[in-house]
């Protein structure tokens, strides 16, 4: 039972708090925050990430397409990409387009994380929402290996949860591609996709894959918050219900 008087101070949304924590942990190993638009072009969301049209990999993400070809980036955002207006627009299905946008504007080496909202055209239920937050990570340097990826992810997840393991998987923008599971409360839970940046992605972003290597990872932040706090329904996060926010 709650007996405190809550008049004095407000509350951050639990996902905001988690993003702050993520920022704090990754800052200690040199990762900066990058961002990008929520409305993307087909090029940034798919083609540049080695997901061509008419490829079965496009089925892996249910996509919202827009009727209007609106500008993808607001004027004040310091990003390239007043992209070709003939291109079809989507609500970004992942934060991975920011990999391309960041690489177009910055010279390696760099390390970034991208916490941001993404969209999937899926029927909603307790574990699926049409909108959710994802955490993208990208490190590019002269030599980057799977050991660096594993070390970085373990450094992060150990602080929030427990140990991790890799399984083979497929994401067109990384090679090798891995699924990352974490061990939390006696169970292995799938939390991340990851891998080494595919040479075609480097090429699409204008980075020479002969000189640079990288790793990338991406996973749901909502899911981490659900696991961490025992929240059973992802839809609570977007209900505008203070019965959720005021608990945190």
């Amino acid at each position: 039972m709650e007996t405190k008087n809550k008049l004095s101070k407000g509350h951050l949304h639990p996902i905001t708090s988690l993003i702050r924590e993520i920022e704090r942990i990754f800052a200690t190993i040199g990762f900066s925050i990058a961002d990008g638009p929520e409305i993307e072009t087909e090029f940034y969301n798919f083609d540049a990430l080695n997901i061509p049209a008419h490829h079965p990999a496009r089925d892996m993400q249910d996509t919202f397409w827009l009727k209007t070809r609106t500008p993808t980036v607001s004027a004040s955002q310091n990003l390239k990409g007043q992209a070709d207006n003939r291109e079809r627009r989507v609500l970004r299905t992942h934060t991975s387009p920011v990999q391309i946008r960041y690489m177009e504007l910055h010279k390696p080496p760099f390390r970034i994380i991208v916490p941001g909202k993404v969209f999937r055209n899926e029927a909603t239920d307790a574990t699926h929402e049409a909108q959710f937050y994802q955490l993208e990570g990208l490190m590019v340097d002269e030599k980057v290996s799977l050991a660096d990826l594993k070390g970085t992810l373990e450094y992060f997840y150990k602080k929030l949860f427990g140990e991790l393991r890799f399984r083979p998987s497929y994401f067109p923008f990384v090679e090798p591609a891995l699924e990352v599971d974490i061990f939390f409360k006696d169970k292995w839970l799938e939390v991340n996709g990851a891998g080494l940046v595919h040479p075609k992605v480097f090429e699409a972003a204008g980075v020479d894959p002969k000189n640079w290597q990288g790793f990338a990872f991406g996973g749901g932040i909502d899911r981490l918050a659900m696991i961490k706090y025992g929240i059973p329904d992802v839809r609570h996060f977007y209900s505008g219900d203070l019965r959720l926010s005021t608990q945190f």
Partner: protein
Amino acid sequence: MKVSYTWLQAHIEEKIPVPEKVAELFTFGAFEVEHIEHADNDTIFDIKVLPDRAHYALGHRGMAYELAAIAALTLKPRRLENSIRRDEALSVEVDIRNKELCTRYIGTPIHGITVKKSPEWLENALRSIGQRSINNVVDIANYVMFDTGQPLHAFDADKVVGGIIIRSAKKDEHITTLDKREAELSPEILVIADEEAPLAIAGIKGGTKAGVTSETKNIILEAAHFDPAYIRKISTKLGIKTDASKRYENEITPEFTSIGSELFITLLEKEQKMRVGKSTDVYVKKSEKRVLHVNPEFISSNLGFIIPADKIKEILMRLGMEVNEAKDMWSVTIPHSRLDIAIPEDLIEEVGRIYGYEKIPLNVPPLSKVQEINKNFYYAEKIRDILVKEGFSEIYTSSFENKGEIELQNALASDKGFLRSELSSHILKSLEFNVHNADLLGLDQIKIFEIGKIFTKKGEFLSLAIGMKNARKLKVKERSVLEKVIEGLEQVFGAGAMSHSKISDTTYEIILDPILEKMQEPKEYDFIYALPETKYKPISVYPFISRDIAVFVPEGTTEEEVRNIIISDAGELLQHLRLFDVFTKSIDGKSMTSYAYRLVFQSYEKTLSDNEVNEITNKITNTLNANTDWRVR
């Protein structure tokens, strides 16, 4: 894909490990086993085959190839030889008119067959993976597909007029598919036709014109190869997805066509006498094995630890690759089936997953550069901290709306057809919603905000909306609270920075991008880091009931004393208790203090009735009144 344990075993020389072990080997070596089902004398795995391995693993042979490579077992050689002497006089003409979309077609006439019930082994094999048995011809074709991954099709040869033509459909042509559906054809669609009409939608679905029936005596067997992007485009457009189209759209090697064809003949021959004609094989461009040049050191350095070169070679060979060691640069010849292996980087994954990802060491890369501070992030967090300090709580709401400037092409629901062009409408709804829960939340005022993207024809913008509503009659006006908060923000963002904006009695909204742009580059983040260690308390779906209790007690009695009695008597249905009024006055010469509480009751299991709550409050009242000089008002 459904995979039978018994079927896998038939492809491997040694006894394969027990099903649970096989599932583990697959999951950590190649693909995720989503489900294991034990059936009579068999175990069925449901395996998630992703598009890269769908080139070769949508058949039991491909699965057995993987298992053999992962567990260092021996794949049995394919035995395709049969004693059939081909009747050279019997053949079928094959004319590929679109050599871009159909790159190989093998047509084989088989005469003098009897269409009948399938033998038991075949029925069982198909049933184990959830396929219905139809007749021996159709079943063998299906069996071959689920074994090799190569789709086959049989036409009734007596209903085919002239030869087989692979061509674009004509305008206004129609076809009735085997499942009795009418499909309208158009020139972008490729069909298998005879001289008269279409017999099948190429690679997707057969038609009734030359369909195999129980009367069929002579067939033409088709084993073909089609362009994957074309199959995907047309099967999506027609809304016809079949086991065959799924395999073609993932691209399979044209080398599979001859294997599929031969396996069909070998299996059918086991069942009956028949006359097999000459195969007409139109192979537009023979597929060559890919050769990759790779240095073993390249594989090790990408994995991040040293794997001995001979171990790398052994793994590649287990995967059916030929390795030629020339100094440091190896030439690795890739099997036809492995269309996913196109660049040297692809071999890193092959070696890594078979050697074992668990062997990869952990390395946190040493710091190379200082962190950059993200201005937008910095100032958005700053605003959050200011608002939280002022008693506002953060909410997230839906980016979708029933109206707006940017419309979706494929909305999830009719009331979610647009992207929001402002945050305020959701803030207003949220104020209304939360006011009803004010007692439960223990709040007199609902104070909320959201920071998020809004979408207009001009582009997307970062917006801030603040909402405030009194939950009961209070002297303080909402608008004045909002104005005070805006003043507080202007202390950071500059006087007048927030003025051009929408303010109403209960909401305020402003686009942040131009304001943030004018701000100085921050040096370091200074927001408050404190990850709450809260355990989430479930939200009850049942309504709550509020009751007020006020009691006079002799001055000097502590509030805690009163509170403890209430809590102890109220039991677990009491969700919230709040002291909302205290005063002291003289009654009959004694100085008495009044404590007034609001009690909120709610159940997780049902809707509480007034009577249930009255019983509890009566009990509390009685206990309070039992104290000397205490009096519930």
